[in-house]
């Protein structure tokens, strides 16, 4: 049985190319682990940028509470503050931003702000953090969400926190990719099927060529355990 967190971490890691500058923010243990995994495997020169401010931290010390803490600074060679990481993206120098949200539509729109009417929200969400400026400026934004249901993948967003350079969306069930302005299904994770995905998705499922997401290889699993001995990739599923 493949755990969703492992399947997601591996899928997200595979999207990172060698040499790219990659940013993740707070509440982002899963992309953090995916990035560490990619650097261990096929993308050793990917550049790890984060809120803690360390560039390419070795992360000798795990932190289960925060993905924006001092452990991302302590053993880095260079420092770059959050403000400067944003600046980098604004001037076109950020290749990949990992971002999440609560609602996603088929156009790549993201809502991380609120549920209901914005003038009097039913649910106040945390907010998009850097999304509103990063998704339009990073070369590509990779979205992830540990829930896949019709309240998450919707036809109509309650609020558009941002639309921009979304390239991929990874969920516990599948991997979507953007194609000509539309979010289409790219691959289905092992253990589910297209009917389950269609019934769990609020927008119509479309695809050009449908693959099965390759399950984590033994090498990927071994590396995953090395870069994430504390199983931080599973935090969002435990909560």
């Amino acid at each position: 049985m493949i755990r969703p967190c492992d399947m997601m971490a591996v899928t997200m890691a595979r999207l990172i190319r060698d040499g790219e500058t990659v940013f993740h923010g707070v509440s982002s243990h899963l992309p953090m682990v995916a990035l560490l995994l990619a650097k261990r495997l096929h993308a050793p020169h990917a550049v790890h940028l984060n809120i803690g401010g360390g560039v390419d931290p070795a992360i000798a010390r795990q932190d289960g509470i925060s993905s924006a803490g001092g452990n991302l600074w302590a053993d880095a060679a260079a420092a770059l503050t959050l403000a400067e990481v944003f600046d980098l993206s604004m001037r076109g120098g950020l290749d990949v931003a990992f971002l999440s949200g609560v609602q996603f539509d088929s156009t790549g729109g993201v809502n991380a702000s609120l549920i209901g009417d914005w003038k009097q929200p039913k649910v106040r969400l945390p907010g998009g953090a850097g999304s509103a400026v990063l998704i339009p400026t990073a070369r590509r934004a990779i979205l992830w969400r540990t829930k896949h249901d019709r309240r998450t993948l919707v036809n109509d967003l309650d609020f558009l926190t941002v639309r921009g350079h979304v390239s991929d969306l990874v969920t516990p069930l599948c991997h979507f990719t953007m194609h000509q302005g539309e979010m289409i299904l790219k691959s289905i994770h092992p253990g589910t099927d297209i009917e389950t995905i269609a019934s769990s998705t609020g927008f119509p499922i479309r695809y050009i060529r449908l693959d099965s997401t390759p399950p984590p290889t033994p090498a990927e699993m071994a590396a995953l355990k090395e870069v994430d001995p504390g199983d931080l990739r599973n935090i969002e599923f435990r909560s």
Partner: protein
Amino acid sequence: MSKLTSLRDAVRAIPDGALLALGGNTLNRAPMAAVYELARQGKRGLRLVKTAGAMDVDLLCLAGGVASVDAGFISYESHFGLCPNYRKGVEQGQIQANEHACYTVISALRAAAYGLPFMPVAGLKQSDLPRAHPYFARVRDPFSGQEVSAVRALRPDWAILHVQQADELGNARIEGPEYEDILMSRAAAKVLITAEEIVQEGHFRRSERKAQIPHFMVHGVVYQPRGAAPCSCQGCYPADEAEISSFLALEDAQALTSWLHERGRAGI
């Protein structure tokens, strides 16, 4: 010219309704001791500014002291989930949620630090945020004629920052992640420093690791070991999960008062 004072006296100087920048990020190096004292003194109508806040904002919301929050992200991380008191306050219409991209908070603080009424912002393009909030606008580049987004300056009345080291004159040094603290010290009209350690001025003079916040920007220095707890403080202590959970179990402002009172007796 010593600015050393007690936390009580330092926080007394902050008026109800102040626009207040809080240092740190989520559960890291937030100025929690000062936040506790703001709640104990029953401050009202505070307008908080932060890129990403968590327990600091949530606690002041439970205390009933918050009028508005300008931030990009207000939530705990990992298993602690959303900020229940902030959510409730916003959903019940008591607290104004001024949602930013974290970067527009930075840009708004930069505008204040640079003496400008606004800051242009690249990147803010397809979003409902500018439509929903009056602190966003568009401005025309006078050279190319192209339009770019802009955010109104945020000039905090006070910045409250917890640091690892300060001297009694107010020179303050942050080790490890700076987050927006240095910028906040420039943008704010006044700065309150709480510090893990009070060092001699000569300590910084002899070192190549200079204070990043110069004394003349600082209006009060409080010796406050564990002043970020239960949040983490780089090089000093990690976050205290049990204590955060203990806070999250509180049901109302009255329970918070007792909880803060207990901690006050324990010298926290």
